[in-house]
């Protein structure tokens, strides 16, 4: 079997060490950095974002140190179409989208894998903290959590298909972040102490409203804060400034803390409520992708993560029509947010996941 791997190199510590490890394991490694957008496009000239020119140069430097070929691919058009446009659409619908899921789905495991195979590579690799294994019984490719639970990134990988998993390596799955940084330092990679990129790569300052206005001309439209009876409580600055569970930044004062409970894009209202009103016993996940098995035929007990930074909550899955799954928590969970990913875990194994549907 061919041992040619293309490593997606962001210029950061993780993907650099991933390339190093694969070389040590005897793979024929090629590095590739993706150009997804330019800082100027995002209106962030001079800011350090992920995939900036400086990151390309970092990746190129590591590739030179490792003695591997390095390519830069321009996927800007696809990124705008498949990631940024979807991100904007999600906000327009009143959701809080997670573009990293789409980037993985369409760009990294879509376009990049396609490009790599065109160029004669057998697999791609990334620096994600995750593990891929083949189940000896079913023959299915499984996605499993990383050994470093604090860094586990399977949440953003739930949409991977069998074909993609069969052609992807995650060399860091068995390592801790501290070990990875140590390896980087030991090999003289300049990025060993580079801080991890957080937040959405193309909106590093977190100002989503500003980004959407600058790049897509979407303007935030003020509307009403309402309570659950429909009574108007005040004015909001535009749906995009709020997410379910948010307490700060409402610019209103109440005797008891109020939280964003729901956003209604059609009515342009933001519903506020007490903490208790944030709890849901169940929700529906749509566009569900199952990894561990082909189809959900009956109820299944899993752990569900409804947010990247949140721990799993025990729940039961019930299959529904059209690729949808009903998720019923054992205990009501707080701030279930339409547009976010819901990922189902069966112990270490990623059972699958989907997007949290609005009402």
């Amino acid at each position, binding site marked *: 079997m061919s041992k040619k791997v293309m490593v997606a190199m962001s210029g950061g510590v993780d993907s650099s060490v991933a390339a190093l490890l694969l070389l040590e394991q005897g793979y024929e490694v090629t590095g590739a*950095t993706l*150009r997804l957008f330019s800082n100027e496009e995002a209106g962030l000239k001079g800011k350090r974002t992920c995939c900036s*020119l400086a990151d390309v140069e970092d990746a190129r430097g590591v590739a030179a140190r490792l003695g591997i070929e390095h*390519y*830069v*691919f321009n996927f800007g058009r696809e990124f705008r179409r498949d990631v940024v446009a979807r991100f904007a659409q999600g906000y327009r619908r009143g959701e809080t989208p997670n573009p990293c899921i789409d980037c993985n789905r369409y760009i990294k495991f879509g376009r990049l894998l*396609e490009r790599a195979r*065109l*160029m004669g590579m057998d697999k791609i690799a990334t620096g994600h903290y995750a593990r891929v294994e083949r189940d000896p019984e079913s023959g299915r490719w499984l996605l499993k959590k990383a050994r470093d639970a604090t860094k586990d990134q399977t949440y953003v990988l739930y949409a991977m298909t069998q074909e993609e998993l069969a052609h992807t390596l995650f060399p860091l799955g068995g390592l801790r972040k501290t070990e990875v940084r140590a390896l980087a330092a030991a090999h003289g990679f300049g990025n060993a102490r580079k801080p991890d990129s957080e937040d959405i790569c193309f909106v590093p300052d977190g100002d989503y409203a500003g980004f959407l206005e600058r790049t897509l001309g979407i303007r935030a439209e003020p509307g009403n804060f309402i309570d659950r009876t429909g009574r108007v409580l005040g004015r909001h600055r535009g749906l995009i400034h709020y997410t379910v569970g948010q307490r700060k930044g409402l610019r209103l004062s109440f005797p008891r803390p109020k939280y964003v409970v729901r956003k209604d894009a059609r009515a342009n209202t933001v519903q506020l409520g007490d903490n208790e009103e944030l709890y849901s016993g169940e929700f529906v996940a749509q566009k569900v992708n199952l990894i561990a098995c082909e189809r959900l035929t009956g109820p299944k007990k899993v752990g569900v993560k409804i947010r990247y930074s949140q721990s799993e909550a025990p729940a039961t899955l019930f299959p529904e029509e059209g690729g949808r799954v009903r998720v019923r928590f054992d205990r009501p969970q707080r701030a279930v947010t339409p547009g976010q990913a819901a990922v189902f875990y069966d112990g270490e194994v990623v059972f699958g996941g989907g997007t949290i549907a609005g009402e």
Partner: protein
Amino acid sequence: MPYLTGEFGNPSSAHAAGRRARRAVDNARAAVAAALGAQPAEIYFTACGTESDNWALRAAMRMQAPKGRTRLITDAAEHHAILRTAQALRRAGYRTQVLGVDRLGRVSAGSVRAALDESAALVSVMAANNEVGTRMPVRAIAQAAHEAGALFHTDAVQAVGHVPIDVQELGVDMLSFSSHKFGGPKGMGGLYVRKGLPLPAGLYGGGQEHGLRSGTENVAGIVGTAAALTEACEAMEKNRAKLAALRGRLTEGILKKIPGAHLTGDPEERLPGSASFVFEGVEGEPLVLLLDQRGVCASSGSACSAGALEPSHVLLAMGLPEALARGSLRLTLGAENTEEEIDEILRILPEVVALLRKAKR
């Protein structure tokens, strides 16, 4: 290569080593001038064609402004060295007008004439386009510019050394060239400035290049530039015939063997070694990468500083739909290329195009 090894003299020094270096630079300048139909004192060496373009445009606009002439006229198929300098001039308060080009990539003397009036300071139109090879009617445009009292500059980076260039015959005020485009060293370029034109300096400092382009001369680069240009001019006629044959074989082969392939640029009035195409249903970036893996060095669009590919602004300016413009390929032939190599390309390229079209979902 004496000036990269034993000869370290600085041409500005009074001692013997300096004087030897000075003589080498003088001789080089004379050779370059002769090749362009200019006088030695009209040739200024720079670090690249881009520097020449930047200098010519910014200095000329500064020079013309007190006369109330504050408008720069250029065209949409120019190299970024011209277009981005024009953008910078606009931000600095000058007016810029970017004329359209036709579907062959040419700007007409007529459209330039229509844009000229007493506010026009400078017209800048390239001698030949780098992406599609189309040659521009430089002499006619220079004439039109002068009739309106404007200056004329041409970015002749692609043309010098490939087709005969005589600055007197063309009637230009300034002309940019670039050494590596005719086989000289990278990091070297030059600007022809017509005698009597009081162009402001490009770089201030020790006063080299008659005070207009300070900085210690790149002696080895200058000597290499002159040698390359002399050689290129001597071989020009012979090469043109050979290139015409090779390019014809290549173009005919590609258009015959690959469905949905189109030649871009003027089929006749173009640089001898330039072969540029667009292929329907194909993207330039993977095309170039797959060709590279098979030993063919080609280009598409323009490389950005990250090393990724951007779609060509020239093809878009020529009116090609964006999807088609993304499928561009440039194969630049040189005198060292052979018929066997052409046939090799004609074997490899159709396979690669078919592979990409099949992979496209």
